[in-house]
């Protein structure tokens, strides 16, 4: 498992470039479905997206070649210096990633809670979704020594309600009320 993780982190730039390339190709193919009539300018609505996508595909391929060259030269460098035990592989770019893993967990939780918050904003309503999101975030990221549940709950409920009321009653921006439709 660790080996797989290491391989992924080593080739992550290449993997990312490949995914982007696939997206660009799919988007290029989808340009054939853009409706068009004989345009008076001779270009039509397909022209510019195609030019942009061709440039993106070309540049992504250049990026992949650059990355491959970098990986090959890093591999050569690694082999050459393998006899020298003092050489620390962490100097190379791809081996920096595992060091970030402790922070990655918090980052992942943050991203997941962000996605959930935005997705629940409409069904739950602004107040409920925001209160849940804010309290969860404060609770997870405060660290044990700074964790003050009562303060977090009071702040979460109080400030989210204040924001909701200011926007709804003062600025007449009707934020989603969700299941609390009486508000």
């Amino acid at each position, binding site marked *: 498992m660790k080996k797989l993780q290491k391989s992924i982190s080593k080739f992550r*730039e290449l993997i990312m470039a490949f995914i982007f390339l696939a997206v660009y190709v799919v988007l290029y193919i989808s340009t054939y479905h853009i409706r068009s009539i004989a345009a008076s*300018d*001779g*270009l039509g609505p397909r022209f510019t997206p195609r030019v942009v996508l061709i440039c993106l595909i070309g540049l*992504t391929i250049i990026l992949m070649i650059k990355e491959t060259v970098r990986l090959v030269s890093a591999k050569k460098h690694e082999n050459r210096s393998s006899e020298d035990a003092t050489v620390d592989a962490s100097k190379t770019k791809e081996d920096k990633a595992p060091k970030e893993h402790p922070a990655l967990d918090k980052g992942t939780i943050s991203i997941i809670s962000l996605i959930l918050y*935005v997705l629940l904003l409409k069904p739950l309503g602004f107040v409920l979704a*925001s209160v849940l999101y804010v309290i969860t975030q404060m609770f997870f990221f405060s660290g044990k020594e700074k964790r003050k549940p009562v303060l977090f709950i009071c702040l979460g409920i109080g400030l989210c309600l204040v924001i909701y009321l200011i926007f709804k009653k003062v*600025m007449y921006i009707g934020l989603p009320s969700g299941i609390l439709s009486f508000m």
Partner: protein
Amino acid sequence: MSMLLQGIINCFSGITFPLMIFGVAVGIIFGAIPGLNASIAIALFLPLTYTMNPITAFAFLVALHIGGVSGGLVSACLINIPGTSSSVATTFDGSPMVKAGYGRKALGTGTVFSFFGTIFGVLCLIGFAPLLAKFALKFGVYEYLAIAIFSLSLISVLAGKDMVKGLLAGLIGILVAMVGVAPVDGFARFTFGNHALDGGFSLVPTLVGMFAIPEIVKSAQGKNNATVISLSKGEHSRGFGFSLKEMFAQTKNFLLSAAIGTGIGILPGIGGGTSNILAYATCKRVSKHPEKYGTGIMDGIVASESANNATIGGAFIPLLALGIPGDVITAVLLGAFTINGIAPGPQIFETHTVLVYTIFGALLVANLIMLILEYFGINVFVKILKIPQHILMPFIMVLCCVGAYSVSNNIFDVYTLLGFGLLGLILQKFEFPRPPIVLGFVLAEMFEKNLRRTIQFSKGKISVFLTRPIALVFLVLTILILLVTVISQVRGRKEKFDDDV
């Protein structure tokens, strides 16, 4: 001159002045909250002005405008999230400066040069409005296309260390802007049958998402906890945080940025969202130390803030002299003129002289109020940074969502915010620069629309540019910028190769 003085005096009559102070303060708050901006503030408060006399009404709306544009720098500097699209480039140097412990200097620089930027734009408005409006009328599709090409060439300046990634970022920005109906013929592109995408992605949620979400995640990872240990490092820890010498050293930078800001403001269809980043890229291009841009230097903040505030005066030129709104804010203001039974245009300087000069006076007075409020506000603003990140950042996210939702009272804009936040995270992870994405995004429509119209009108003949001197100048400038970039890239590679050898 006496008319201008009368206009200024009008701002102090009755309830007008207190309303202006309120307007600037509210504007600053709207500008500082990511997602909300001056146009939302003006649109919200417009109904309040129905019962006011035109002089008070316009002075109040102008105050909201000035506050809204200037307030964006607060969040741009303090939390690295642009409050409005006009302050995107302020984040590039404002945030690193704050993180280095120079919070007062960053906010002070932004405030003072916002003040000077507005003065520059307003002086152009007062002195040359009819002349500049006539000049703006000379801008047709060819000139707009040339400006778009020139501006897009500045992506090479903003690309950073890796030119390929910089260009890719710029093209991603252009591609994203192509979602929705195509200009000229209006056929839907990349919507995949989803009608919510027909209108494309709104500028505000897109930019706020791209900047705010990576910052919030970074903060959750504990990477932002070192933010500002000392807020006022250095010898100038009071006042605006910088010396007069430092201020005067920015004269060239300021004049160039303010001229760009005013110029962009005059041209209908382009606004502060474009001018700040264009001024930043141009100042970086002509700078003797371009490598320092993005590390937290005054030059970057001066470029962005002078330009976006100078755009205010510039945008009033076509509004007053021709009755053409240059951006969303002036479009709302045009509505305010209509409500008051006034038709802006060449005649307005004669038929409504008092009102016109009151607007000029209000721009200057509101600008002064902004300077004073932000000066005293610096101490309050920097205290925000003392709030623990785990408490501050979740509320910033909530405000970003509210701001995005307020753009058109539509949940789709909140999804846009999230989507572009995730894209921003991926691009940040793989070290793609974000400034070219912004430039590509804001210029794509202008480029494509005018490219297609140019080909329509010229029947595909490039030689038409030889008969359009303004367009030709911009195209020559584009070629020069690209040449300089290629030469510096080749030279950089050669030096790297020599070092390796």
